[in-house]
């Protein structure tokens, strides 16, 4: 069993999250924000990450950082002997992926008299039906997450984040379905990106 190395966790989070502030990196990795900040400074000194100013800026990988992440994440995969298990889990993920996107679409759009209409969330019964489907989907997603975390412990974070997003959505914070940066859709998309990066599969 490999223990997640905070240095690699932060570097790799920027690979699947994209440009982000330290708060989002902390949410993605489960590290404390102050620890993330000190890792980011070390990584910046090493030339692996950079900070982009502006309203939409944040921390991101440099070209060198992207190469370094690819090498280290491959090392982690191979030294844990986890390639076969992660590949199998990725295949299972790909079966679930179109269904999750269907669910997000149903959350955002609904068909009324054959007309696709923006779901304005004024019909609690419809929303409850979609959230029910999310809950049922989540039970199957958890199985894939478990396959992944038993192969590589750092993947365990996704199960927690997906579960939290669903809990929050169910308690009325509807933006945790498909809108926010910690929404079910956003976390799921990061898992997709992480799997591609981990297995070295180009998009």
């Amino acid at each position: 069993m490999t223990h997640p190395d905070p240095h690699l966790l932060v570097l790799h989070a920027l690979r699947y999250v994209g440009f982000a502030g330290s708060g989002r990196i902390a949410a993605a990795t489960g590290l404390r924000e102050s620890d993330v900040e000190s890792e980011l400074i070390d990584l910046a000194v090493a030339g692996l990450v950079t900070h982009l100013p502006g309203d939409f800026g944040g921390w991101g990988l440099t070209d060198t950082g992207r190469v370094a992440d690819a090498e280290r994440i491959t090392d982690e995969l191979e030294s844990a002997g986890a390639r076969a298990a992660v590949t199998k889990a990725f295949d299972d993920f790909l079966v679930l992926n179109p269904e999750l996107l269907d669910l997000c679409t149903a959350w955002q759009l609904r068909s009324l008299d054959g007309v696709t209409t923006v779901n304005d969330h004024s019909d609690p019964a419809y929303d409850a039906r979609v959230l029910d489907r999310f809950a049922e989907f989540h039970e199957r997603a958890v199985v894939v997450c478990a396959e992944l975390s038993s192969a590589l412990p750092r993947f365990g974070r996704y199960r927690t984040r997906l579960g939290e997003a669903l809990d929050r959505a169910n308690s009325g914070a509807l933006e945790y379905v498909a809108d926010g940066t910690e929404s079910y859709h956003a976390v799921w998309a990061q898992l997709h990106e992480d799997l591609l990066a981990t297995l070295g599969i180009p998009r």
Partner: protein
Amino acid sequence: MRWIRPLSARTDEPVELVGGKAHGLTVLHRLGLPVPAGFVVTTEACRAFRRDGRLPDGLGHELATAVADLEAATGREFGGAQDPLTVSVRSGAAVSMPGMMCTILNLDAARRLERAVAAVFSSWDTPRARTYRELHDIPHDLGTAAIVQAMVFGNRDDHSGTGVAFSRDPNTGANVPFGDVLFGHQGDAVVSGGTPTRPLRELADREPGVWTGLLDALSRAEGHYRDACYVEFTFQSGELWLLQVRPGRFVGAAAVRVATDLVDERVLGRNEALLRVSPHHLRHVRTPRIAMTEEVDILARGLGACPGVAAGRVATTVDSAVRMAAEGPVVLVRPETSPQDMSGLAAATGIVTARGGPASHAAVVARAMGKPAVVGIGDLDVDTTSVRADGRTIGEGTMVTIDGTSGDVALGRPRVVTSAADAHLHRLLEWADEVSGNHTERDEARRLSAAQAVLRRDQR
């Protein structure tokens, strides 16, 4: 036969038993249009399969008989050594479940036919299909039919291909055929969106015989449905075959235009036209659209994924989108999007992707952010500083305008309108006010609803 029905002009079975697709094929037969020979295994067989976990007794024998009929009709032998009969096995339920169930093409051994039918029936119960039905209020016990037809090959030679066609333009409702054609390919390539298609009009020059046949088919199908319609077709060595037909299911301004035009064409009466348009269609008439005039220079066309119009300078990377957004609106153009693109998506005023459909990552995020988006532009190439489409290359920084309803990407800043200003809508609503007797100021949907309430009351 208990479990199988032939596909022919004489087949007159309810859509619940044979499914929507097979029902459409029998309509095509009755209209005298060319349909590949075939038969349908009913939804009743699917229900038996679901109940017992295996194909019903007697189906194997019926399949053998039906295949022998198919061999006689086509003069070819299933699994034969030379020019053998090959079949497709397609799903088709009573209600549309696009892309949810399986299709098997190029099947060439009789023994595999039963397995293929079982595979189609099983695909009714994949978790994804079940979720779709739960979301769309479709009962799980309907089941799907399985349609077995002799294959026709859109990839046979230079005079072969495949396509989809609407009898009228589904974006505007204008009475001109609209669609996509793919020369030298089979049908699945059009639907998957993986191969760039050509505008339907190119068929007129390259295969004039097929084009004439297609126009005739569209006209007869319109006559049957008394509405705009949609067909899927393949042409093999210059010979046209129809594979599916259904009403066009137009929405928004296009639905209004078709309803009023059909009154002018004396196909519908005014009252019937008023009932054809859903008030839901009119809730969106104030969504801005690019005004389609001769001067509009369309760079590319994809699928509208989030309605609205956005104008801005093209950025092809997240970095440049974030940088350029400081100076003015940006349209982010990407091959597809991933979480790494989130800051670019946030910075952009509109989003364009080459790949992906209405449920892709880009589409979901665009709708969450309320930003106009166009996805699935097959022939769009995006590199680090430029975008290439339809033989033209434009650099980063070029001004473009995108329409997230029609899927158009136009160069420059064309005029933007809302269909509330549309002449066809004015006419329809005047008819509505005459029927309801209410001429006060109200929104469009309420004016139509009032007229429909009167008409429905009178129908009772």
